């Protein structure tokens, strides 16, 4: 966008917003919730490790954020919405 680049600044050019619904295989244990695998655009991605977890509140509901690295060493951010019980692929890093 020109507005952002006017000062020669890129808003983290490698991060792309996706915001698409995805199917996720998860593990529940010890009060924790971890994504193991997700499917986006008919492709399956295996989560190698969860590098960050945090929560945001939406009224009485919560958005659980997960920063994950896939087996291919690509970065994705997933969000679980406790209101809709839906998973969203929020972002990815185009360069991995």
């Amino acid at each position, binding site marked *: 966008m020109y507005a952002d680049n*006017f000062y020669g*600044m890129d808003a983290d050019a490698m991060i792309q917003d996706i915001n698409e619904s995805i199917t996720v295989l998860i593990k529940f244990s010890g009060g924790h919730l971890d994504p193991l695998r997700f499917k986006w655009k008919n492709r399956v991605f295996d989560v190698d490790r969860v590098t*960050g977890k*945090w*929560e945001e509140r939406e009224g009485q509901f919560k958005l659980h*954020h997960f920063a994950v690295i896939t087996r291919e060493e690509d970065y994705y951010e997933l969000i679980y919405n406790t209101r809709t019980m839906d998973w969203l692929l929020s972002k990815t890093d185009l360069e*991995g």
Partner: protein
Amino acid sequence: MLARGAHHKLSPGKTGAHKLIFHIDMDAFFASVEVMCRPKLKGKPVIVSGKPAARSVVAAASYAAREYGIRSGMSTVEAFRRCPHVIAVSGSPGQYIYVSLELLRIYKEHSTIVEPYSIDEAFVDMTGTECTWENCKDVAGEIKAKIRKRFGPNLTASIGIGPNKLIAKMCGSMDKPDGVTVIRPGEFGGVFNGLAVSRMWGIGAKTEIALNLMGVATIGDLANFPVAMLRRRFGITGEVLHLMACGQDDTPVTPYFEGMPVKSMGHEHTLPEDTWDIMEAEKVLLRLCDQVARRMRKKQYLGNVISMRLRFADFDSISRQRKIKYYTDEERTLYKVARGLLHQYWRPGQAIRLVGVNCTGLIKVREWHQVDLFMQREEDAYRKLLSAIDAIRDKFGEHAITRARLITHDASGDIDDVPLPPGLSSSPFDMLRYQDADDHIHTGGK
């Protein structure tokens, strides 16, 4: 694992002759959290700056970005000018709060007295725990190892250990990143006397200039400067400056909830005529306590830190606070504590011009159950953590971080950050005030 310091008690007014205080400061915190999530950012110049725009400000810079002269508080435009290929990340405040609370949980395994000082800094009072001057470096190493185990190698802390908060804070920035520095009782002067006064915690640009004009260049100069002259120039702050330059500080490490006085409720009253009569001041105090308690009940707040403020005829003022063991909204409790403080700190002969009373450590009555749970139950740590996040959100609001940034930015130029006298309640933004110590005050950091 070390035993918890269960026998700790806060005793304001008591000087900490034999205290053992840790200051734990995360290195380039926001940038490091981003690197933790996206390991490929490691070693690259990264800034956290919100959405880059003409007026956005760098909230944190990775060490690689600092090599280009980028500092937090700088405008994003300037950061890009200094390093055109810097990676600007918008940042996830929710995640920073989350990590911050997890860190506090680690510290609390070592002492019950943990004070969050900003989102990435905390004081831990180790006095009376198994941590001693002999093994404190090992304990610091243990804390670092726990952080590494929990968050991986990209999130590091620098730890300063001293006999009070001032010294712990000041030596914490001497070996950044990932360092441990210990200054034992009596060693302060030897380490700091030769350094510029600007290296003192809390001395801002304006105070520095004022001191330089008085011929005070180093911390040692300040320690040896006549207190009376400091007092004439800076008021009561002059005495605080003197004590600080001598490495003295008896402010207690104030644990957890009272460390985040988001809101306060208080009233002040200027007397029609200055008075030397303490009974007169008591009467005013009682009426103020009545008003404050009524307002707290109306707004459904309970509080557990009560402060009393006096301004004298010469416009000097003092503010002293005391934490009580339970939460209250009753005027008799407010009055009992405030009156005690009045009697303790007023000196006969000081003419009183203004009296004030203030209650902080506020929680909503409906949160009381939640906080009670948080503070007393040991099991189910995860739920406690969640309720803590909720409590912070409820209190600060989702936009607290943005507002805090504005304040930090201002503070670098306009507000002269003279230290508050001990006991004066802290800013509502303290918890979320983000600035790396090595960026702002102690520019000598690596």
